[in-house]
């Protein structure tokens, strides 16, 4: 059966022209409004690159230094711009190098289309040079994938791919194109996909569930909101804010939900999860109604499920039916696009304030400030803390930068302490925990939001996993501000070794190169700070620069991130030290 019988189409390019498959690929991208892609050329994708050369005034191709970098850059671009990120690579190793970024985009619901070249269809299965079964390899980590073996398929498959990547719960799609399909000609016209008969992007609004939710919310004495990235992906920030303000309910974020509500909002009570704030975690087990919006009850959020919010009724706003009752049994699923659901819910809820209940969050925040936060942000000891670096960044960006983080201690500290005033300002690898994500993602984030200050905060471990992308940053001159918090350790693993493995620091100590020399080797402005008195001026200089800038801050080697819920423990067992 032909793809066009399975999907619904809307005409965009009506005049039919006879062109090569490779040119059709470019024209499909242009028809989808794509003007920027990241990639790396190679044998099996060369016909497409040849067309990229011809179309370079309409379609900007950024040459990353590794295909993994192309995927993370595409992700960063998608996360700040809200558009679909595109990465392109050749067959074989080019394709397999995309897999980490695809898996990251899948678990963090990032809209991305990856294009890979493939050996000629007559060679498929012959173990030809640079042949790999990328369809087989990418199947479990893509929302959808497809192998094009003749040029005629290109327009419909691209239309379907973009529709799938960005609709409903977004995700990565991979299109593999055999070399013969790139060379062959086709009669090209382009129709946008408006539906796939076997696929339902978002369940319809359940008005009865909305009424029921309103009743539960209106009757709750100690309601608590936990929101995730669904609010951002659904473009529901305004509705969400209106809901929070009218209901007067304290709201906490998951790491991917961060920045959907300004940090300073009086009802923003902080982060939930393993290194989240004290109050939101403890009070998860005290609230009488838990309202989960666009989040998926990840194990890093819930801790031990047997002791998670057992006393509470739970409402789950969710676009993906497969997330309902997956980890946490909920009393009321509210399926659908949360922008639509929240809109219909707001008129039904009573305007309230929950002062006494909010006081509980404030009290616990005071405890956390005294036990943890003051020591992190205003340390009395000699060594620099990660927290005080964030304070300085907040000061010089006026709390309005895009924060891009990698994975580990610095990620937790940066997300805990960075100030945000607008949405789509936090780019991090949450679900997959991909070290090496931040540097290329920061490049993409900057290109997706060129008017904004983009600060990448990275650990010395993850930085070295994709350090080659300094070359891409240099070549594009994207004014990314790169801050490496160097503790000469794989800090988060070391922290676990200290706490749970009797300080046996197996392979976590790093002997690092001279990062300044490396940055300067890429002709980047670079500075190193190892004393507190130099920190603020260095951060000021970095932010004032209109070019890419590298700042290394040598921080205390064996600091730990607290609060912490040990793996498998209850949110009630959150530790302050």
């Amino acid at each position, binding site marked *: *059966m032909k793809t066009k*019988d*399975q999907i*619904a189409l809307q005409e965009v390019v009506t005049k039919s022209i006879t062109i090569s498959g490779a040119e059709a690929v470019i024209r499909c991208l242009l028809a989808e409004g794509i003007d920027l892609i990241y990639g790396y050329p190679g044998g099996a994708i060369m016909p497409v690159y040849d067309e990229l050369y011809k179309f370079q005034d309409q379609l900007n191709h950024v040459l990353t230094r590794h295909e993994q970098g192309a995927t993370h850059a595409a992700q960063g671009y998608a996360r700040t711009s809200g558009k679909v990120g595109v990465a392109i690579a050749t067959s074989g190793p080019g394709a397999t190098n995309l897999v980490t970024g695809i898996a990251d985009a899948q678990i963090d619901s990032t809209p991305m289309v990856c294009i890979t070249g493939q050996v000629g269809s007559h060679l498929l299965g012959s173990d030809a040079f640079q042949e790999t079964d990328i*369809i*087989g390899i990418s*199947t*479990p980590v893509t*929302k*959808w*994938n*497809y*192998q094009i073996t003749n040029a005629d398929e290109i327009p419909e498959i691209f239309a379907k791919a973009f529709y*799938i990547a960005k609709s409903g719960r977004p995700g990565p799609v991979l299109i593999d194109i055999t070399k013969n399909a790139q060379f062959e000609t086709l009669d090209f016209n382009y129709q946008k996909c*408006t*539906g*796939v*008969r*076997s*696929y339902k992007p978002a369940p319809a609004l359940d008005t009865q569930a909305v009424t029921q939710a309103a009743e539960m919310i209106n009757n709750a004495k100690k309601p608590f909101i936990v929101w995730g990235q669904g609010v951002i992906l659904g473009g529901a920030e305004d509705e969400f804010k209106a809901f929070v303000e009218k209901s007067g309910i304290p709201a906490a974020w998951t790491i991917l939900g961060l920045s959907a509500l300004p940090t300073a909002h009086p009802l923003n009570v902080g982060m939930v999860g393993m290194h989240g704030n004290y109050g939101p975690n403890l009070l998860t087990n005290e609230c009488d109604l838990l309202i989960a919006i666009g989040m998926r009850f990840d194990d890093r959020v819930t801790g031990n499920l047997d002791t998670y919010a057992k006393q509470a009724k739970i409402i789950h706003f969710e676009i*993906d*039916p*497969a997330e*309902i*009752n*997956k980890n946490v049994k909920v009393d009321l699923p509210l399926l659908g696009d949360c922008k639509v659901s929240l809109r219909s819910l707001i008129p039904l809820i009573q305007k309230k304030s929950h002062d006494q209940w909010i006081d509980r969050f404030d009290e616990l925040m005071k405890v956390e400030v005294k036990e943890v936060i003051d020591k992190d942000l205003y340390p009395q000891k000699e060594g620099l803390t990660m927290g005080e670096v964030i304070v300085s960044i907040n000061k010089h960006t006026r709390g309005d930068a895009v924060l891009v983080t990698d994975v580990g201690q610095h990620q937790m500290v940066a997300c805990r302490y960075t100030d945000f005033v607008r949405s789509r300002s936090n780019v991090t690898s949450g679900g997959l925990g991909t070290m090496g994500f931040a540097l290329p993602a920061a490049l993409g984030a900057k290109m997706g939001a060129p008017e904004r200050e983009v600060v990448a905060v990275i650990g010395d471990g993850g930085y070295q996993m994709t350090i080659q992308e300094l070359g891409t940053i240099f070549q594009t001159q994207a004014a990314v501000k790169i801050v490496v918090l160097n503790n000469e350790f794989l800090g988060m693993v070391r922290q676990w070794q200290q706490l749970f493995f009797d300080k046996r620091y197996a392979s976590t100590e790093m002997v690092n190169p001279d990062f300044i020399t490396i940055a300067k080797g890429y002709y980047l402005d670079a500075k190193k700070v190892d004393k507190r008195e130099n920190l603020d001026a260095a951060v000021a200089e970095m932010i004032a620069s209109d070019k890419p800038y590298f700042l290394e801050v040598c921080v205390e080697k064996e600091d730990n991130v607290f609060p912490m819920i040990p793996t498998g423990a209850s949110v009630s067992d959150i530790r302050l030290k």
Partner: protein
Amino acid sequence: MEKTFTISIYSENNVGLLNRISSIFLKRHINIESLTTSQSEIKDVFRFIIIVKLQEEGVKKLIKQIEKQVDVIKAFYHTDEETIFQESALYKVKSSALFEERHIQNIIKESHANIVTVSPEYFVIEKTGFRNETDRLYQDLAPFGLLQFVRSGRISVTKSKMGISEILKKFKSDN
């Protein structure tokens, strides 16, 4: 408690979908007892019948993950009581056994099996039914020497209605 469930999937007939569906089981370390695919009652729509032994909670989650796949139109699960199901088995036996051992003819007759083909060297018997029926015939024939034995995966239809045509019709009228 673990039970046998029949998972029915209606899908597009696209290359790679079997891999996508089986990877859902693999990711969760779930063994597939049997799997058959074929054309369904609707033109261009394929049907998978997958048998698993799971707790109902687990099979519910599995169905949602399967249905989430773009090329899957709809997935269902049913218990044995809710379905009419059969398996087919083929038994290849030496022809000499048929003529030398009278008893074998009685076995075939009593089991309501069919003789599919007879040649001077071998003959092939077909039996369709429940697992215990094809098993019994296997045990009865084994002493005479089975040259080959093969059994299909379960095929089944449900007692209740599936409603796939309505979904496809609705898509057509909406677009």
